[in-house]
């Protein structure tokens, strides 16, 4: 019988912080702008300049640490990581090596309904590098390469998990939870696809039940949640197959090739850089004031788990709904805004999780980009309650609101979507449908329930969906019965 394996996965996540200025100078961190315009002598690493730490970066790191249940170091420091690359103006990166600002935390994910705690080994601060723009594919195969230092010195947090993840799905859930927490803290946008988030994974496998660790590989270049899951799945299978073939896993760094759907060897352990870390002499050690930490703890906003529990308690919605709605702070805010305006939380949840998310996903939009406001959604739900529109028409109205941002009453009026509640008008159409479909009417009379649905459909079709469904049902039944 083949050995059953389990994977041991740890993730290293780098995420850009949303501070106004860079970590060691006062240049703006805003995206865009002409190349090399958000730069100054300090972030360009000109001779003679010195870094000065942005206090807000430290505050962000502490907030993240507190939210991830970490200890906040009383004494921390910065170090230099030395390597040569033209996107690095000083040819060293200021980072934190052996005394990170936060350590020893965890976050909880829900795997198949069960809570699972994933350890956070450490969180540290560092500076981002610039961006190379090659004329060809790579720096060695390009006629020339340009470099843009606008991103140089943008603050990053590196969050390192313990090797507690066992499947690619757990890895994705971990990353989603991390994203939600950082978003709630309002310290990072965590946009993986835009490169404001980078994720590397350490992975090994071992026979299920074993406590020894197998040889690990490091995977880089996973640029989306989907890529993360695919790459890990591929790598787990590659490890299993390698062992099954009687070969050995080689400790190395590999890169995920999204197009080919494979991981490829980047460099072996022997080729690994010696970064010659040493304490950054231009920055004094960080002594973190306990009162400041207490103050930041006090200011901590409600986090996803707490909000989920509150949604279940206060709005009486199911676990599942509460989890989806609180996954993103913006979505949860949206939901609560509608709840202020409309009294039935479950109906709101159905619409937000249903139509709204479907439309957003289809367009690839974020909730904050949605044109349909909480007020409009609430108004639309009220129009349904008042019988002005049917549930079916409401979907049309919603799509129109989503597309144009107009208020529902106006859409209903302009598009002439008001529900027909005039009994005489509907009765006429009902009579007509009965007359033109005698065979179906007969089937219904003989007990074929499906036939009734067809007749309802015909009436709705003729009224372009505007007939009150309740009225149509009643009139159809009355007429057919009176025929007998």
């Amino acid at each position, binding site marked *: 019988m083949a050995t059953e394996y389990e994977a041991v996965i740890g993730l290293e996540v780098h995420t850009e912080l949303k501070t106004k200025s860079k970590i060691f100078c006062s240049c703006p961190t805003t995206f865009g702008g002409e190349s090399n315009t958000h730069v100054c002598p300090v972030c360009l*690493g*000109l001779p003679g300049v010195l870094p*000065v730490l942005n206090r807000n970066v430290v505050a962000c790191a502490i907030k993240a640490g507190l939210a991830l249940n970490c200890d906040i170091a009383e004494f921390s420091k910065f170090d230099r990581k030395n390597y040569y690359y033209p996107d690095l103006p000083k040819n060293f990166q200021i980072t934190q090596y052996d005394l990170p600002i936060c350590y020893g935390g965890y976050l909880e994910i829900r795997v198949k309904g069960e809570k699972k705690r994933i350890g956070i080994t450490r969180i540290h601060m560092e500076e981002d590098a610039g961006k190379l723009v090659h004329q060809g594919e790579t720096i*060695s195969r390009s006629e020339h390469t340009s470099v843009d230092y606008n991103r140089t010195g943008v603050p990053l947090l590196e969050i390192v998990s313990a090797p507690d993840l066992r499947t690619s799905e757990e890895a994705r859930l971990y990353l989603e939870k991390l994203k939600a927490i950082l978003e709630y803290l309002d310290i990072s946008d965590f946009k993986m696809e835009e490169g404001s988030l980078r994720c590397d994974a350490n992975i090994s496998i071992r026979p299920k039940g074993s406590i020894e660790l197998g040889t690990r590989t490091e995977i880089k270049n996973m640029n989306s949640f989907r890529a993360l899951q695919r790459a890990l799945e591929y790598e787990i299978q590659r490890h299993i197959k390698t062992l099954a073939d009687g070969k050995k896993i080689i400790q190395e760094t590999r890169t995920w090739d999204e197009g080919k759907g494979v991981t490829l060897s980047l460099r072996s352990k022997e080729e690994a850089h010696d970064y010659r870390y*040493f304490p950054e*002499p231009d920055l004094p050690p960080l002594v973190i004031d306990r009162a400041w930490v207490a103050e930041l703890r006090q200011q901590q906003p409600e986090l996803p788990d707490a909000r989920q529990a509150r949604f279940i308690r206060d709005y009486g919605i199911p676990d599942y709904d509460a989890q989806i709605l609180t996954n993103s702070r913006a979505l949860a805010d949206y939901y609560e805004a509608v709840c202020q305006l409309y009294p039935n939380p479950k109906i709101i949840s159905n619409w937000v999780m249903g139509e709204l998310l479907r439309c957003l996903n289809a367009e690839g939009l974020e909730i904050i980009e949605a044109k349909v406001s909480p007020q409009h959604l609430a108004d639309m739900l009220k129009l349904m309650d008042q019988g002005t529109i049917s549930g079916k028409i409401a979907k049309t109205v919603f799509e129109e609101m989503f597309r144009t941002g107009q208020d529902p009453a106006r859409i209903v009026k302009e598009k002439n979507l008001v529900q027909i509640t005039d009994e005489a008008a509907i009765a006429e159409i009902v009579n007509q449908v009965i007359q033109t479909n005698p065979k179906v009417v007969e089937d219904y009379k003989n007990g074929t329930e499906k036939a009734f649905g067809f007749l309802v459909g015909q009436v709705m079709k003729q009224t372009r969906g505007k007939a009150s469904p309740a009225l149509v049902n009643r009139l159809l039944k009355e007429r057919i019965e009176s025929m007998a």
Partner: protein
Amino acid sequence: MANLNQLTVHALQDLLRSGQVSPGEILTDCLSRIEQVENKVKAFITLTPELAKLQAEQAQAFLAAPSAGPQSPLAGIPMALKDNMCTKGVLTSCASKILHNFIPPYDGTMAEKLQQNHAIMVGKLNMDEFAMGSSTENSGFYPTANPWDLNRVPGGSSGGSAAAVAAEEVIFALGSDTGGSIRLPAAFCGVVGLKPTYGRVSRYGLVSYASSLDQIGPLTRDVTDCALVLNAIAGHDPRDATSAPVAVPDYTTFLKPDLKGMKVGIPREYLGAGLDPAVATVIQKAFRQLEELGAICEETSLPHTEYALPAYYLIATAEASSNLARYDGVRYGHRSDTADDIITMFNQTRAEGFGQEVKRRIMLGTYALSSGYYDAYYLKALKVRTLIKQDFDRAFEQYDLLVSPTAPNVAFKFGEKEDPLAMYLTDVCTIPVNLAGLPGISIPCGFAQGMPVGLQMIGRPFAEGTLLQAAYAYEQSTDWHRQKPELGVR
């Protein structure tokens, strides 16, 4: 009357205040002196006479303005900066071929402060390349000569700064001191040189050699000038996180010719083997002079002194190997035109741009930080550094001041110390002071073989005032600082 270029800051200040001379006249005397002697001394890398004339006019206007408020004693005084301090629009080469064309787009804090004080910059001064050396022979361009004997070195690395002041080309200069680079050339050239406490003066704009040791300070004709310049340059700078938020006193208030009751320690390790007997004689006389002024001198010990030199050459070179990594030809400075790819460009640029001593120290530092060697070298050096600090802490529990020769010998001849280790030993008395971050001053205290000898005084952190007091009292009781070099050959 003497030529104006021969005077001190405080003498000129009196003349300027009373309207007897103008900044333009002082500048003219300095520029003609430079014209006359610079081809022998070679203290400068860059001269900025046009900029200086403009600044002299501005200083004139400033001094004449009735609303000028409290007047800076440096207003209208010609000076020069070591070429490792960034000056906007003026070449800042660190005496290195790799920065032969680097014109900073910004002013460092020193350039800024001196401008705010209306001092007049006449140029940028020669040095050992990236401040690595003790003789200025490591300049990537040419060596500077010692005004007391043109066949001898001025000391280093701030050799240009000391020589320019000694040769009366400028009234004062700024240098930087990582292991003795202000005090040693001050001693060799017979001028006053102060290395302030680490953090006393901003390093923003100072091209780093070894960040945790580098400190800027003045080189002047006498102790009073030293206090005046320190007043202008000291203080916390929000652009330098290692600069100390410690209030700056008026250092001239310490200038009292009195040492009564001051307790002075003489560390025996600084008088050990290698000390030139002629220098020893001069130094012993200086110690007796201090006693005559009322100081209580006692022999003491700094037991870890012998480990200071090796610790320094690990810590300084480790930091340098990283600080100098940015010179790769990508953004500024020299770029090799023989390379076809990025790695070759890095390698060729650095091979062509750096001199021998810089390469030696980069390699040494890279090695000290390498995985597998870090603990044995760099980490051990840090521990030694702590022990050396503790030696000083203990000594300062008993003494207000420690005194020693600044260097074990007088200025040597060009090419005399070809063995780098022999050269390194020149700094045995000054290096521990940088490792401990303490203030140290070198003042003229006599002559040996016709060359100046420097007396070093070391103080507690931020006790520059005590140093200046003792140095002033000694200076006022002697006339070594009034001796003038002949700019000849001995």
